[in-house]
């Protein structure tokens, strides 16, 4: 069967994914995409301005077209359909035959028909090309105006503000987001948006755009007033792209859009239409979730599942506009006859909440939340599943008062069919099944069900369902560290800090039991070090350190250790290099340059370590903490000092940061990178903390990772001064140290953080928890109390004497045997050292012989 898909946007691609999963035999699928690039995430388009690239926004998994055999033609617009011959003609004149045709042509932005709307530097907001044009224009503009105060218009205003422009929003209706919120909600939203520096003009009907006196354009309004700006972006709604249907006599909806039935079929049985271009019962849908649902229905129906049907869609939405939460559910305006409403407004904090109930007050039919949308998940489920409201429904939106818990939804009340993630249509039943299949973290659930993986709004609810299901199955929801402590790492950290606990014995006596183990001891050692930063080999701390920390080196497979002197920022003097070389030569060590831009020396026996370090310290080196769950390296490119492209002094900053955070003990190792320009030679976006120079300062990225599961770091803040940068890194690192699980890198910590990047930004940038000053002070304490552990170790006799192979002999450990390879040592394999004892009685024979 030959299938042609016209349009490769979000919905078009979802259709392809669904089709691929259905594994239709003999399907020959061709996709015509008008844009120069494959499908990307238009929902998160504004992140393009925050540093995401077109590739970051791509929705197409690497190798998708290779694996599926589907063929994609880019820059290929379908210009005509011949329904009798069943062919599609592209603008280039290519003619393709189909058995089934799927129209996923999307929509076009509506541009009000006023004179001057086609002037230069007037834009619409839809494609990456539009955004590139806006960026270019923004760089030579002082001010910008967005026409349209709806959802997309406000997104767009954020983009203009991020471009550094004086930003205006012009809205025809008397309030912002006229479709989703009511008058009171619109008022609160307006004052919040204005407080962010965006000027809002409602009740304005643009009649003409002309040359401005002080800026490029002048917008003239029906009331005679005017507004001047250098660039204009139209975002006044969208119109379905139904021109192909109109040209070829397919039925269209009363208000436009290609008319489809419940199976997403058009008036031609062999042509389907899905997404924003389709009209179902004369309704079009401008949200992604209904589009995805249509894609699923069309794919199944086309594959022969005749019962696949579209049943309309809930237009409830929750979003964050410029940091302001806005949510709307069902009949938000209260238009249902006889309905009742409950309202709560806090003018100080600028929060507005309203619920609309049925006439008898028993069912929720709508809601508006502005300024805080914490209850969205609960309210949505109540509305969608017709769950009986509590006797006093007002408590659903009133702030919790002392001792009185807010009435929750109780996820147990939800039927298995309840849709928890609307973007990816994941039901409660599917989440429970995934839990049964072994997914017990949010990260794992996202990976196997896609729940919460698109907009992320449902993640708190997904977490609730997951925990409830785990509890129901008697699975350990407990995050107890081990049998000795019935506490999570985060809780232990808190207990240590609040209780001013300084030793493991005290921690065990007050909050644990037994002797401890190889799980809780290093965890406690790390927490104690993060909090108080005492010398890790002090008598009462030494027994907690695992072998690497106890001997301040990385243990290797043969029981020898590696030696890694710190070379901050990867910088080393010729004398330093010579000293390292001389030490390596003298002790016969294997040398290798690491990925962290320093030098590893391998093959040191435990009794050699103090002598080796004494010589390295004399040459000016310090411990590199390669053995610790702590800051490893700050990798840097050579930066503006030498590089002809460099914008910032990346090496200078890297050295400074490495020296600031060296020795900080954390739940896991931490790596930094600093690049001197966007060419990113230091690969900073693959690090826990990545910094990239801009012409205005430094961009800060966090939670990246290389290794087993590579993860791109995310932009936390842009164009920072060095002082602001350090302040944010202090907060970020300490928040991680305080809240992560043991052995959890920043990337997994971030993936499991409820509220995701927005939450992290709230805490680190906006100090939403009121912790910033404390986090900074704690970091400053760690910085101020830094010591080189090796220096203290070699100069403290009681500690130094622990570095020996045998307590009663000066002999060397004969189990460590080297052979030569490529001019250096390496551990001998068993077959190369017959002297190495095996196990059991044979061992005894070997050693006593």
């Amino acid at each position, binding site marked *: 069967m030959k299938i042609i898909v016209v349009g490769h946007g979000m919905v078009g691609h979802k259709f392809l994914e669904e089709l691929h999963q259905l594994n239709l035999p003999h399907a020959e699928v061709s996709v015509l995409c008008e844009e120069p690039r494959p499908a990307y995430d238009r929902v998160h388009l504004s992140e393009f301005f925050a540093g995401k690239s077109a590739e970051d926004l791509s929705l197409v998994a690497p190798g998708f077209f290779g694996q599926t055999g589907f063929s994609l033609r880019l820059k290929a617009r379908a210009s005509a359909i011949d329904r009798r011959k069943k062919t599609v003609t592209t603008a280039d004149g290519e003619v393709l035959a189909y058995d089934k045709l799927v129209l996923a042509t999307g929509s076009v932005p509506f541009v009000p028909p006023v004179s001057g709307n086609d002037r230069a530097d007037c834009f619409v907001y839809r494609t990456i090309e539009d955004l590139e044009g806006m960026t270019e224009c923004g760089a030579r503009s002082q001010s910008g105006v967005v026409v349209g105060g709806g959802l997309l218009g406000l997104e767009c205003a954020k983009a203009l503000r991020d471009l550094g422009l004086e930003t205006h929003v012009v809205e025809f209706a008397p309030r912002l987001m006229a479709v989703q919120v009511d008058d009171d909600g619109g008022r609160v939203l307006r004052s919040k948006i204005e407080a962010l520096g965006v000027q809002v003009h409602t009740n304005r009907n643009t009649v003409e755009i002309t040359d401005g006196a002080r800026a490029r354009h002048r917008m003239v309004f029906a009331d005679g007033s005017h507004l001047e700006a250098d660039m204009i972006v139209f975002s006044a709604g969208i119109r379905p792209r139904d021109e192909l249907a109109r040209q070829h006599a397919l039925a269209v909806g009363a208000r436009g859009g290609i008319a489809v039935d419940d199976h997403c079929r058009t008036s031609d049985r062999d042509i389907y239409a899905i997404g924003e271009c389709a009209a179902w019962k004369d309704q079009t849908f401008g949200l992604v979730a209904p589009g995805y649902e249509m894609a699923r229905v069309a794919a199944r129906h086309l594959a022969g599942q005749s019962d696949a049907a579209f049943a309309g869609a809930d237009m409830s939405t929750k979003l964050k506009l410029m940091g302001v939460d806005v949510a709307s559910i069902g009949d938000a305006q209260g238009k249902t006859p006889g309905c009742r409403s409950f309202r709560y407004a806090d003018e100080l904090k600028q929060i507005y909440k309203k619920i609309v109930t049925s006439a008898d007050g028993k069912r929720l039919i709508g809601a508006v939340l502005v300024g805080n949308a914490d209850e969205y998940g609960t309210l949505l489920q109540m509305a969608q599943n017709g769950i009986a409201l509590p006797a006093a429904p007002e408590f659903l939106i009133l702030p919790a008062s002392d001792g009185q818990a807010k009435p929750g939804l109780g996820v147990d009340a939800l039927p298995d069919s309840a849709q928890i993630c609307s973007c990816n249509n994941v039901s409660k039943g599917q989440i429970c099944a995934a839990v049964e299949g072994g997914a017990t973290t949010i990260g794992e659930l996202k990976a196997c069900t896609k729940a919460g993986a698109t907009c992320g709004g449902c993640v708190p609810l997904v977490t609730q369902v997951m925990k409830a299901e785990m509890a129901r199955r008697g699975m350990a929801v407990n995050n107890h560290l081990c049998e000795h402590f019935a506490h999570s790492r985060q809780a232990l950290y808190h207990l240590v800090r609040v209780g001013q606990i300084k030793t493991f014995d005290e921690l065990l006596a007050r909050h644990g039991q037994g002797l401890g183990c190889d799980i809780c001891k290093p965890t406690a050692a790390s927490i104690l070090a993060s909090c108080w930063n005492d010398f890790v080999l002090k008598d009462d701390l030494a027994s907690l350190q695992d*072998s690497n920390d106890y*001997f301040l080196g990385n243990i290797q497979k043969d029981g020898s250790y590696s030696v890694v002197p710190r070379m901050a920022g990867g910088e080393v003097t010729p004398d330093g290099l010579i000293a390292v070389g001389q030490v390596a030569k003298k002790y016969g060590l294997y040398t290798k340059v690491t990925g962290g831009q320093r030098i590893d020396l391998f093959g040191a026996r435990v009794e050699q370590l103090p002598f080796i370090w004494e010589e390295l310290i004399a040459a000016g080196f310090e411990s590199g903490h390669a053995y610790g769950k702590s800051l490893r390296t700050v990798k840097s490119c050579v930066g503006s000092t030498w590089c002809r492209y460099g914008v910032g002094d990346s090496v200078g900053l890297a050295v400074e940061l490495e020296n600031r955070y060296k020795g900080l003990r954390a739940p896991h190792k931490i790596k930094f990178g600093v690049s001197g320009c966007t060419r990113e030679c230091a690969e900073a976006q693959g690090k826990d903390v990545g910094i990239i120079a801009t012409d205005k300062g430094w961009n800060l990225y966090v939670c990246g990772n290389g290794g087993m599961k590579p993860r791109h770091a995310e932009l936390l803040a842009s164009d920072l001064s060095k002082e602001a940068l350090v302040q944010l890194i202090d907060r970020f690192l300490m928040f991680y140290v305080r809240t992560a699980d043991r052995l959890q890198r920043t990337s997994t910590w971030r993936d499991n953080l409820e509220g995701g990047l927005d939450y992290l930004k709230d805490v680190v940038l906006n100090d939403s928890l009121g912790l910033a000053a404390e986090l900074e002070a704690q970091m400053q304490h760690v910085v101020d109390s830094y010591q080189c552990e090796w220096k203290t170790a070699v100069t403290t006799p009681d500690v130094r004497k622990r570095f020996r192979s*045998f307590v009663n002999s000066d002999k060397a450990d004969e189990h460590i045997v080297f052979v030569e390879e490529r001019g250096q040592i390496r551990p001998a394999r068993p077959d190369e050292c017959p002297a190495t004892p095996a*196990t059991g009685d044979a061992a005894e024979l070997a050693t006593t012989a």
Partner: protein
Amino acid sequence: MSIEPLVWTTVCAVDDILPDTGVCALAEGRPVAVFRVGHTQFYAIDNVDPKSGASVLSRGLVGNLGKHVVVASPLYKNHFDLSDGVCLEAPEHSVRAHSVRVEDGRVLVALG
């Protein structure tokens, strides 16, 4: 197996072993891991970790798993019961336990 009197080797002073850590001693040429758990309990097992062939068990972390007082190998984290040398995760990788006693502030070890 023949019954022979134990040969005791004095390996170190009690204070040479930090509480809840181990040291490695040579007893009749064989590397033995000697542990001090709390202040007064002493244990000895082979120092060689059968899984890796490296002489490292004295450098593992000491603690308990349920009723077993154990050391975790620093290389692959498998646990050995200090009283009998049994490897809890893989009994085929168990080691020999040895005798220890304290006399006049000295620690003595005998093989077997």
